[in-house]
């Protein structure tokens, strides 16, 4: 144990890799279970001009969760949380569907862009609202975003008029069902956002600032980091990722359901971030870890679906995963393990 910790202090890279170990092992274990339950699980084929196979399907379905988890990760990195993402997904989906629904099914590309711009604009506004309450009014993040979580579903219902809006506009389905160079477009979107985020974090000082704010907001402020605008911006970013996820989900099923779109997504996103090794009290983040965490959750869902257990049972499995991930992060638990290990050796 001491040897390992010395090694990590010598090479910071090791810490990052070790963090990824847990989600990677989980991913591998789930893939094995998946192969056992359905033999062709890992095979990737080429059909109708695009990649196909169960694994590609998992990646495609994980795209909205990946996006939202990235936004959640950035907010958590500065000691925040955003539990309104599910509601924002529903609002964005409702806005997009009602704009495109009003334009009619033969509308051109203009209506599509209006719908995308409208959905993203409203999602960014939702993020700004959260940012305003947390950064501006100084409310606890869990409570500030709880407000939008409660009221947001009502707002989404109000936009859709309490109905499930069905979209008949064919180009709209490209967002959630289309392929670019054979790769699902939703996945391309998730990758684009990931690349942009990684560049912003690694090529500018943003990453450093975010870690500084998360470790000690006061010290960061004293050191001249403009903590408040940055934190505000991260809430807007989180809202935007939820907006993109909302577009993908509603396009995927060609409808917007104010009640059920993005239901429990906030929990999945927090779980993905925690599984990926980002501590929930901020100060560190791992983009790769979060993406892996999102994949683990989607794979778990798929494996449970194909195993014949009731689909809703994966809630219980996810809960056990959270408990395990949280305990492994807890210093008190690691101490307990170390002491238990020590007595056994003695």
């Amino acid at each position, binding site marked *: 144990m001491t040897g390992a910790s010395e090694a990590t202090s010598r090479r910071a890279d090791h810490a990052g890799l070790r963090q990824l170990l847990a989600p990677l092992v989980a991913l591998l274990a789930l893939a094995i279970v998946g192969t056992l339950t359905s033999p062709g699980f890992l095979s990737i084929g080429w059909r109708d001009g695009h990649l196909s196979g169960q694994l590609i399907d998992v990646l495609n379905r994980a795209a909205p969760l990946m996006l939202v988890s990235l936004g959640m990760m950035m907010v958590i990195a500065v000691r925040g949380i955003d539990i309104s993402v599910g509601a924002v997904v529903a609002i964005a989906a409702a806005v997009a569907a009602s704009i495109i629904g009003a334009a009619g099914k033969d509308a051109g590309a203009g209506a599509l862009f209006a719908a995308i711009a409208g959905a993203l604009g409203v999602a960014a506004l939702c993020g700004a609202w959260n940012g305003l309450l947390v950064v501006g009014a100084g409310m606890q993040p869990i409570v500030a975003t709880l407000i939008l979580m409660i009221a947001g579903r009502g707002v989404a219902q109000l936009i859709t008029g309490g109905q499930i809006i069905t979209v008949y506009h064919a180009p709209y389905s490209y967002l959630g069902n289309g392929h670019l160079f054979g790769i699902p477009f939703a996945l391309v979107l998730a990758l684009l956002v990931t690349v942009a985020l990684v560049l912003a974090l690694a090529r500018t000082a943003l990453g450093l600032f975010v870690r500084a704010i998360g470790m000690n907001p006061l010290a960061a402020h004293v050191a001249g980091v403009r903590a408040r605008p940055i934190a505000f911006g991260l809430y807007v970013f989180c809202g935007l990722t939820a907006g993109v996820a909302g577009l993908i989900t509603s396009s995927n099923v060609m409808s917007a359901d104010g009640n059920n779109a993005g239901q429990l997504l906030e*929990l999945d996103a927090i779980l993905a971030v925690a599984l990926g090794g980002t501590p929930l009290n901020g100060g560190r983040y791992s983009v790769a870890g979060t993406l892996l965490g999102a994949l683990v959750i989607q794979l778990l869902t798929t494996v449970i679906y194909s195993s014949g257990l009731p689909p809703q049972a994966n809630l219980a499995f996810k809960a056990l995963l959270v408990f395990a991930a949280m305990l492994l992060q807890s210093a008190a638990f690691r101490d307990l393990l170390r002491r238990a290990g020590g007595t056994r050796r003695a």
Partner: protein
Amino acid sequence: MNLRRHLDARLLPLAITIALFIALVAAGAIRYEHFLAPQVFLNLLVDNAFLCIVAVGMTFVILTGGIDLSVGAVMALTTMLSASLVERHGVSPLVAIPLVLAVGALFGLLHGVLIQRFGLQPFIVTLAGMFLARGLAFLISTESISVTHAVYQQLAAARLPLGIGSISVGAAVACMVVAAGIWLAHATSFGRTVYAVGGDEAAARLMGLRVDRTLVGVYVLSGFCAALGGVVMTLYMLSGYSLHGSGLELDAIAAVVIGGTLLRGGIGYVAGTFVGVLILGVIQTLIVFDGTLSSWWTRIVAGALLLAFCLLQRFLEARGPGGARH
């Protein structure tokens, strides 16, 4: 001066809440003819009995500065477990009810230990608990199970006459829970420790109070209240269903905050929570009386109220002795 400010922070939100309640009732009375009928008010209790019970448990958790997001799910698990035990396994309600209450308390114990012993954040632990409880409920059955056992039917139909109207067994239980909550908060060492921990955990420790035990205790209490709420809901709905009580945790938190309990802990009253529950009930009643407003307005209004009271809390904190130091 400081003392007066402190009193403000303690009582001002509660005073505003009570004024708001009166204003809402007055508005209802002016607009709708039969709004002031006594049974309308008794129905506030009848229809919100489970929320009231859950919110009392939540008050203690929030007083320590924690939060319990699992209450709605634990409630659903309770309804499911009761219905399945009684209907499908022929267990007597006399055995089933204590058993489900114990399961709720056990859930709370799990949360409390994870939060207190391992220093995990309350919201994430109870969020996972919410997953677990709903998942377990779904594992019992994904379909709703209706309860036809004679004891449940009789308890559900029973009405206690009060002269001006009548209330259900659930509402009576809710009143007893509120009374017990007030007693627990103000007349026991557990209650005093809860307030002390919420005010300043380190100071409470230095005073030699049993902080650890109390921190676990509030979650056990909340789990127990959620299960009791679940038993009352089983009577109210006469069914067990894994989707019962979805979003209830939010209503309970809203009721507690509207009732004047500070989210950072240390200040608040169980009686305030009771008024908070009544306000949420009145809003719902107003929306029902109106008839043209859709039910999702309830959620928007609840969200707006929560926002208003949170901002009020921030304002009071900034003005109070705690904020003056910054």
